[in-house]
């Protein structure tokens, strides 16, 4: 009996592990994000013109007719394939930088607040509550009205309004971790607070954080598109997905390709990132502690 179980067990666990690791979410997510990411990284090299070549004679060329404009052209005669790929630069930059900025800021604040508690903790968390109550688009429109439009401002704005989610998540992990034996032990050895926080607590709070991060990148790509759609993002000449959607909507009855291709690209990107996020959650946080 004992021998049999020992013979069977590793096989089952290997298959389960294999199966789990290469789940559909992972494959689809990696493929989608990977292809789009690679194209975007190569964009500057592929299209040095920056997608700004206006050709009024070739405006609104339908897609799939020529190799010159495989996805057709927009109302100014610019190549849609080129602009979709270049548009990813802004979307990915905004998505990744804003999420990265927010995660760093939020994590540090969350760690300190959760570890030291006290008055600062209360103040910061009440401030976080207030910030969570402000709708982002409304805040963005107001701030942009004051400081003027621009991609850099949008990134800062997203960091300022999103660190809160990370801070709350990290703080709640820290609150339970700081009472655990290994932290108590570290403290009794006389380790410095800094070493305890970053060496012992942070690694254990990392799982949920990474999941939230992936989901947020996707969310921020959508937000950037919304703001550009409203005409509050980048310079209209800069190719962006939201800007292309916005420009194409007046032509949707006569030239569907102007809106459909950037729209589909946004969808695929967000889908890819969300699938990756779901997979990561299953891997790192099987009990579902991450609030979405």
């Amino acid at each position, binding site marked *: 009996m004992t021998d049999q179980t020992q013979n069977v067990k590793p096989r089952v666990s290997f298959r389960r592990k294999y199966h789990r690791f290469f789940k559909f979410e992972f494959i689809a997510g990696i493929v989608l994000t990977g292809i789009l990411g690679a194209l975007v990284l190569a964009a500057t090299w592929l299209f040095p013109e920056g997608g*700004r070549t206006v050709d009024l004679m070739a405006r609104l060329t339908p897609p799939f007719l020529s190799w010159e404009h495989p996805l057709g052209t927009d109302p*100014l005669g610019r190549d849609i394939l080129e602009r979709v790929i270049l548009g990813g630069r802004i979307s990915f930059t905004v998505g990744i930088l804003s999420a990265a900025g927010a995660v760093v800021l939020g994590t540090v604040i969350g760690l300190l607040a959760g570890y030291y508690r006290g008055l600062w903790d209360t103040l910061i968390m009440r401030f976080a509550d207030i910030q969570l109550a402000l709708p982002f688009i409304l805040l963005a429109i107001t701030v942009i009205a004051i400081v*003027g439009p621009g991609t850099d401002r949008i990134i800062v704005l997203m960091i300022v309004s999103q660190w809160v989610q990370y801070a709350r998540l990290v703080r709640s992990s820290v609150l339970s971790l700081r009472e655990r034996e290994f932290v108590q032990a570290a403290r009794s050895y006389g380790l410095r607070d800094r070493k305890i926080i970053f060496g012992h607590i942070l690694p254990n709070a990392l799982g949920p954080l990474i999941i939230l991060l992936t989901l947020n990148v996707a969310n921020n790509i959508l937000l950037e598109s919304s703001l550009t759609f409203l005409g509050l993002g980048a310079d*209209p*000449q800069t190719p962006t997905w939201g800007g292309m959607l916005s420009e194409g909507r007046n032509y949707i*009855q*006569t030239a569907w390709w102007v809106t459909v291709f950037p729209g589909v690209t946004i969808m695929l990107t967000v889908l890819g990132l969300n699938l990756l996020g779901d997979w990561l959650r299953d891997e790192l946080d099987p009990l579902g502690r991450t609030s979405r």
Partner: protein
Amino acid sequence: MTSFLTSLLGQLPRRSVALAAALAVLPVVAPGQAEAQSVLTVAQSRDPQNLDPIDTFRVAWGSVASNIFEGLILRNEDLELEPGLATSWEFLDDDTRIRFHLREGVVFHNGEPFNAEAVQYTFERLLGEAGAAGPQRANYTSIDSIEVVDEQTVDFLMNQPDPVLITKLAGYGAMIVPPQYIEEVGEEAFDMHPVGTGPFQVVEYTPTVGLQLARFDGYWNGEAQVDEVNIRFIPEAATRMSELLSGGVDISLDIETNSVETIRNAGNVGLVTVDGPSVTILRFHINEGITQDPRVRRAITMAIDRPTIIEAMLGGLASPIASAQGAGSFGYDMALEPYPFDPEGARALLAEAGVAPRTEITLDMNNSNDTFREISQVIAAYLQAVGLELNIRSHETSVYFNDILANGRTGEMYLFGWGGWTFDFDNTAYLLYHTGERNNPYIDDAHLNALLDLERSTYDRDVREQALQDVAAYANENALDLPLYNTATLYGVNERVQGFVPAPDSRMRYMNISVE
């Protein structure tokens, strides 16, 4: 039907005999199946926000209010001035006194009679405290006071000549309002539910949603063809188009030029165009940056192929212009030519002015103008061809007009569109070029001020025309701004609509329109 009846019954005590008679018939009609109401549904992009004539300068107001209000003078769809509530007028005492003879038998929607007191009240209100709070008063300050001669005669005493006054009496702020009604309900209630002498009366105004009008049976000048007009405010151009194509609205105003193809391809909807007063120009920051130099401003103008923009981007539905006015405007000079499209010449001028290649300049605009957002990028491409890098900054509309433009915070160039509804260059030129005007943050030129003051102070048409042409020529010579084009006013009209006459000034009159 119900809401219409309720509103009639609600106003019963104040109604005229004619309406009381009409109401006497109602019990016969109302309980059974009333005959089908004919309703005209109209979409326009903006909400007037306030229906009081003295509180507005919005085209959105003009598009609805000519159905509710009337002035002493009426300007018809051919832009000719006709007697309105005044039957005739004469200039007396060296042109310092203008006498109006008023039409008899006219009543307001609430039954109040139209007479000399109403005229006096209207203008005293406009020139007094209530008017000072709104934007219309400034157009009428040449009027010193109003004298009632008798019930049907009224005199305007002028403190200075005003050559455009008769036109302006057909305009926004000069609509005649009912004294008793305003005293009774107060200014704020009047903003939302006004009463005039026009062919339709207000049933309900819901800000940002719509305005419902019903036929006024006591109207003096014939009878409206439809029972109700339902005006919907739909800011999103694509939504307006969908509503038009699906038959949800009968007429759509504010058609964006880039929708023209869609309408032309649709079977059930026609495109109606008329030469309008609206001009689109780029203005220069003449006090800062490289655009201080007139040679640079000229070069920028010459670098942009305006005829091609009109053909390719505006479907040919616009005309090139050499000044901020269309061909229908008083003060337009046939002989004044726009700068030619000449990129070589532009490059030479820029080199002469010492502008380094790839110099960056900025264009500011508002974010609600889809058509221009595209055109701005074409302009950027043309400028790039002569060695200028254009950054385009778009702002939320109210921020743009109230802050960026009004406080002179623009870049080297900024967008300005204006519909000079008087079709007299005075209206546009004064606000573009006279020192201290709200829409003129940069230009302070003694020569222009003198010309503008001259044309405003005389009734002599020849002197005025010459002065206005001189203003246009001077602005052109110094390239103070970059006149792009004069757009046609576009309407989308469903084929079931009969009797549609396009208004060049967007001041729609729905009285003679019927719906099959």
